Structure formats: structure tokens, C-alpha cells
């Protein structure tokens, strides 16, 4: 059992849980994720490691409530425990000194971006962060990310904070005014697609973190397969980060809708993206 030691409500349906899982905390690196199961009848769902504390043996997850499992997770409180919590899974981010890097985060994608921003800054990069959301209340971790960024921008669809429009508009401006060596983008599939199309024109290396539907997370089931440069890869063992210019985003969008009828939560997800 994995006890919850801290809970924060970040916005109406985005919550943060800090969970005691010493073995996971000891190994966790930016870009990796865990798979949890709330109880014996629960589904296994993947969530990115937003932060971890080796000494305290804790792992932080931040999640958007989109369906049965994430909503149930949101009702848990300090003192409750999770039945299963396995990780860290996937390959860690390629953190090194690139020069100038732009980190683009959209929606809950901002959560997994946070440890990467931190690590890129600590590796001596000039870090430019661009966070985007529908409206300002849905922005996450602004202060935390700003603290590790040399430049910091916000874009909201409704203009309630920062630039009115998409993160890609801001990215375009950045690219127009300075030399960018690498772009890291995490967020809704459509956002990663738009960002990748943009950076491709300028031939800027771009990494994206994909979130296909997963079951085991150990390379056994093949459910998380994604098409990269026309080849089948498994996001749980080969990813979740891939070269943004090689991803077949349309196929990913399609495959992620597979259980939409069963879950009956389509609108909510669409709303979140």
C-alpha cells in the first residue's frame, strides 16, 4: 500500500497528490511516469512523475479529472492509500546542455514539464517557458516553473492572462527573435502537433511526451504503440518522449479515442484539451 501524505487542489479539476513510494522516489528522473491502481477493482492508469523527493521517499503526481479513475483519485485524502504504484517507467528525458531551450506546456501537460524545466535549468541551459491553458484558472505551477525559467510567458485562449491565443503564437515570436536550440513540448496532442509543425520549418530539434492508452507499462501488451517515422514503437518502454517531427499525431488521436464510447467521458476530455 502506498499512503497519500499530501493533497492540493490546484484548480477545479486538477489535483496534486504526494505519495509515499520510496523505491520509486529513489530512481525517478524527469520525463518518467508511474502506473497506479487505486484498489482491487481499479484500472491501471499512467501518470507522469511531477516531482520526487529521494530523502522523504515521496513522489508527486498532478492529474486532471477526466474519467472514472482520475475522478475517484481526486476524492482521496491524506491518510488514504493506493493499492498499487509501480515505477518509475519509461525512458528519462534527454537532459543536457543544449544552449537555449523552449519548454512549452499545455493544460495538465504543464505538470510533467515542471521537473524537466528544473533539470534543464540546472544543466546550464537558457530556459524559456511558455505555458498555455484555456483560461487563467486552469494554469498550473506558474510560480514553480517561473522560478527555474530565464524567460516566462503565458498564453490563454480567452486572453484572461498573458497572450490571447495559442502557445504556438508565442513560440513563433521567440523563434523570430532568438536562436533556439531545442524545444520540449508537453500537452494535448493537437498542441504538440502544431508546435512540431512549426519547429520543423526551422529545423529545431523538438521532443514531445506522448500519452497513449496503457495497460501494463512494461512492454508486454502493445496497447501503447505509436507510429514514429512509420515504425511501431511502444511508448512505455521506448518513450514516452519522442522526436516531435516523426510522430504520427493523427493516429495517436484516433487510438486514444478507442474506449470513448465505453467511458462516456468524451466531452469532458475534449473540454480539457
Amino acid at each position: 500500500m502506498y499512503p497519500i501524505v499530501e493533497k492540493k487542489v490546484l484548480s477545479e479539476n486538477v489535483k496534486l497528490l504526494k505519495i509515499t513510494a520510496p523505491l520509486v522516489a529513489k530512481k525517478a528522473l524527469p520525463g518518467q511516469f508511474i502506473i497506479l491502481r487505486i484498489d482491487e477493482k481499479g484500472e491501471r492508469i499512467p501518470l507522469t512523475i511531477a516531482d520526487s523527493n529521494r530523502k522523504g521517499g515521496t513522489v508527486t503526481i498532478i492529474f486532471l479529472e477526466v474519467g472514472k479513475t482520475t475522478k475517484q483519485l481526486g476524492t482521496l485524502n491524506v491518510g488514504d492509500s493506493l493499492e498499487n504504484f509501480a515505477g518509475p517507467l519509461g525512458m528519462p528525458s534527454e537532459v543536457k546542455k543544449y544552449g537555449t531551450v523552449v519548454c512549452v506546456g499545455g493544460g495538465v501537460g504543464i505538470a510533467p514539464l515542471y521537473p524537466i524545466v528544473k533539470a534543464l535549468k540546472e544543466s546550464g541551459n537558457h530556459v524559456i517557458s511558455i505555458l498555455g491553458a484555456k483560461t487563467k484558472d486552469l494554469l498550473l505551477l506558474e510560480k514553480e516553473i517561473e522560478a527555474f525559467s530565464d524567460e516566462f510567458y503565458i498564453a490563454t485562449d480567452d486572453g484572461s492572462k498573458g497572450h490571447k491565443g495559442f502557445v504556438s503564437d508565442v513560440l513563433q515570436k521567440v523563434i523570430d527573435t532568438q536562436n533556439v536550440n531545442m524545444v520540449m513540448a508537453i500537452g494535448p496532442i493537437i498542441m504538440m502537433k502544431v508546435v512540431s509543425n512549426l519547429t520543423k520549418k526551422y529545423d529545431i530539434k523538438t521532443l514531445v511526451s506522448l500519452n497513449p492508452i496503457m495497460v501494463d507499462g512494461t512492454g508486454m501488451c502493445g496497447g501503447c504503440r505509436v507510429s514514429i517515422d512509420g515504425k511501431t514503437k511502444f511508448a512505455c518502454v521506448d518513450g514516452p518522449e519522442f522526436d516531435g517531427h516523426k510522430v504520427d499525431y493523427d493516429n495517436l488521436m484516433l487510438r486514444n479515442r478507442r474506449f470513448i464510447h465505453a467511458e462516456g467521458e468524451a466531452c469532458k476530455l475534449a473540454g480539457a484539451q
Partner: protein
Amino acid sequence: MSVRKTKHEMPEQPPRERIKNFKEVPYGYSKEIAIEEAKRCLQCKNKPCMKGCPVEIDIPGFISCIAQGDFDKASEVIKAKNNLPAISGRVCPYESQCEGECTLKKIGEPVGIGRLERFIADYEQQKGKNPPKKPKSTGRKVAVVGSGPAGLTCAGDLARMGHAVTVFEALHDPGGVLMYGIPEFRLPKAIVKSEVEYIKSLGVAINYDVVVGKTIDVEELMEEYDAVFIGTGAGLPNWLNIPGENLDGVYSANEFLTRVNMMKAYKFPEYDTPVKIGKVVATFGAGNVAMDCARTSLRLGAEKSYILYRRTEAEMPARAEEIEHAKQEGVIFKLLTNPIRFIGDEKGILKEVEYLKMQLGEPDDSGRRRPVPIPGSEEKIPIDTALVAIGQSPNPLIPQTMKELKIGKHGNIIADDDGRTSVHGIFAGGDIATGAATVILAMGAGKRAARAIDTYLKNK
């Protein structure tokens, strides 16, 4: 007295009934039938049947106990060699193992060795298992990675030798394929759990949620334990590599079966994991995995369940019993067909599969006649779900993270017959070493590795 030429039938659920439920298909022998079947055994002096048993069960020994009605003794004889008889008695491909060597085959059918083994295991389950005697501790510690049949067998045998064994399992349940692959109607999960309880009663500890290579490295295990056994099985599903394979509606057999078996998707929404099946399902492949997919589909409500296979029935790798059961249940076999593309609608949802008809040509390296396409023979059938069951490659996690281990060209860990790998103190066996094979071969490998580990520890 002349010997009866055929095996005694095992009573089973009628096909019409059983395709509506997930309950086990055969009921097993009654005491009376078991004794009669046991009496068919000739008690051959040279015990040819034993040569076919990878876990070295004294087959005539336990059969003669059954013939005398001493089921407890029969159980002891089996348990001396095999910790998981309720499992092997159900899923072992005995026709090509022990029964394949049986002298009676010269005049008819072999003794129903697998059925008798199952009978004894079930007898013991019902009666309650005797707690085994705890051996004297050797003070040695062994880590076993993976709780499939290879890992469980190795762990059980090592514990009986007095070593302290800890199993590390990536998933939340034990058993590997026994739990997430083989369906409930063939191997009830309660039986797997009860066999695992027995292994635990031998003193084996099982830790879940530990993905070795990620949560903890093999090197770290080597620091804490005196030896490590790797039994991580086959993972990565193979694909047909034809257009349309990523359409909505195409699953790997592993994902489909894992959702249904381990996550109990057939009880959705009581359990949270969904599975979607539609009216017409096509399964590609003809091994045990394919039969399981096709039969599971019927139980989930498919109106038509096809098996598409490139060769003919003679070449099908599945156990004879599985093919027979699939036919009885109404699975439609489209033999000598090779899929060439999946076709979806504008939304990307699978609608059809197109295939070519094949004919058998010259024999290939394996001696089987190679299927060759008949030009211009394209056909299409409408389908809602495609299940790809054409094999798996070894689980990549440990090879990926431990560079010193020698790996074969298919991604398997190279190990000798006793499980020794290229690294001193690290042993491996089962599907991770051989590629996808069978439960009993994995158990045999676990058993031989346990013996080799014991010797290694004594000399260390």
C-alpha cells in the same frame, strides 16, 4: 485382459452453454474414472513417458498410486517434483510431451497422464493442501525476477532447498501469463492463486509493483542477494506489419487478453477496465494464444469469430484440445489465408480485412511446406475487431538496462541448459531465454536453474 485403446473422456460443459460463460470447460475426472484410466498404464520398466516430462515427474509412480486408490500418495509423488500440478495438469501440451512418448500409443491413445495429474491436483485442492515441511535454512538469499511459471517453479524449488527467496513482480498479481494471458475458462484464476499460495507457504516472499531494471536494477539485487534468477517472459507482441494495423479496432492478443483476464474487463463496469469487441472478430495466428482470443471473443458476445491462418490445420501450433474446443464452440477457421491490409472508415475505425488465398509450396527450413500466395485471389470480409496473435518477443526491459548480459539476436537472454547466463551468479529461464514457448518448458527451466543455483551457492 486387453487394454482399453482410448483415453477415458473428461466430462465437460456443452459448447452451447459454455460460450455464454467464463467457467472452466472440462470438469475433470471423477474418482472412479481416474482409477479406471490409471489402470490402463502398463507400468513400463524403462518409463518412456518420463523422458517427455520437463519437470521429471515419476509418472508410472503416481499413476500406480491412483490405480490403488491412494490419492494422497499420488499427490506426494507429483509434488516431489512439481510445485504447480493444478496448472500443468490443465495447460501442459502433454500430447507432445509425456503422452507423446507413452508405449500405449503403439496400440491406440496414450494414458491420459495430464488428466490424471489434474485429477490429483484438484483432489488435493479440495482436501486442503498439507503444509510442507520447512527445511533447515542455508542462510543464502536468492532474488527471482518475474512470477510466471519459470519464476514460481525456481522460487519453490530453491525454498525447498532451504534458501531464502524473494520474488519481484512488475504487475499487481502473480502468475505471469497464467494470470493475464490464459483465460479463466481454461485456467481458473482461483487455481493459479491457490498454487501461488502454496509456493508462499514454502517460505517464498513476493513483492509486487517492482519493475526490475526500472524500480531496482539487477546490479542492486546482486548486492543484496547471493544469486538472481530472471524469468521475465515474453513481452512485446509481434505485428503483421501490414497497412491499417494502427486502426481503431486492432489489438494485440496480449492487450486484449490482459484487459479481459487480469483486469476483468468482462465484468466491466463492475471492474473499471473496458474492452470493446463488436459483432465480428478476426484473430490472426493459430497457436494457443489465437485459440484463446477467438474463444474469448465468443464469450464476450461476438456473433462471428474467425481464425485466419496462412497454413493448414496440420501446421497449427495450438494444443490439439484447444483446436477441438474452438471448433465445437463455433469458431470459423479460414485456413490458407494471409491478411494484406486492414481497411477503416473515414474516422479511422476498422471495417474490413483484405487477404490473399494461399497454397502450400516447397518445404522451408523448418520442414513445413511454405505457404505461397495465389495471385489475384484477394478477398475481403467485414470485421469489427482484429486480434493479432502471431507471437511475442522476449520482454525488453532487463536486456535494455543491463548491458553485460549477453543477448541473442531475437532479444532473448542467452543462457545454457541450466540457466547460467554470461554473468556469474545471474541465471535465466523460460520465455525470456527461449522465446515464447510453453508453461511446462518454463517450469522445467526454472527447476534446472534452481538446481544450478544451489550448486553455485554451495561452491561460492
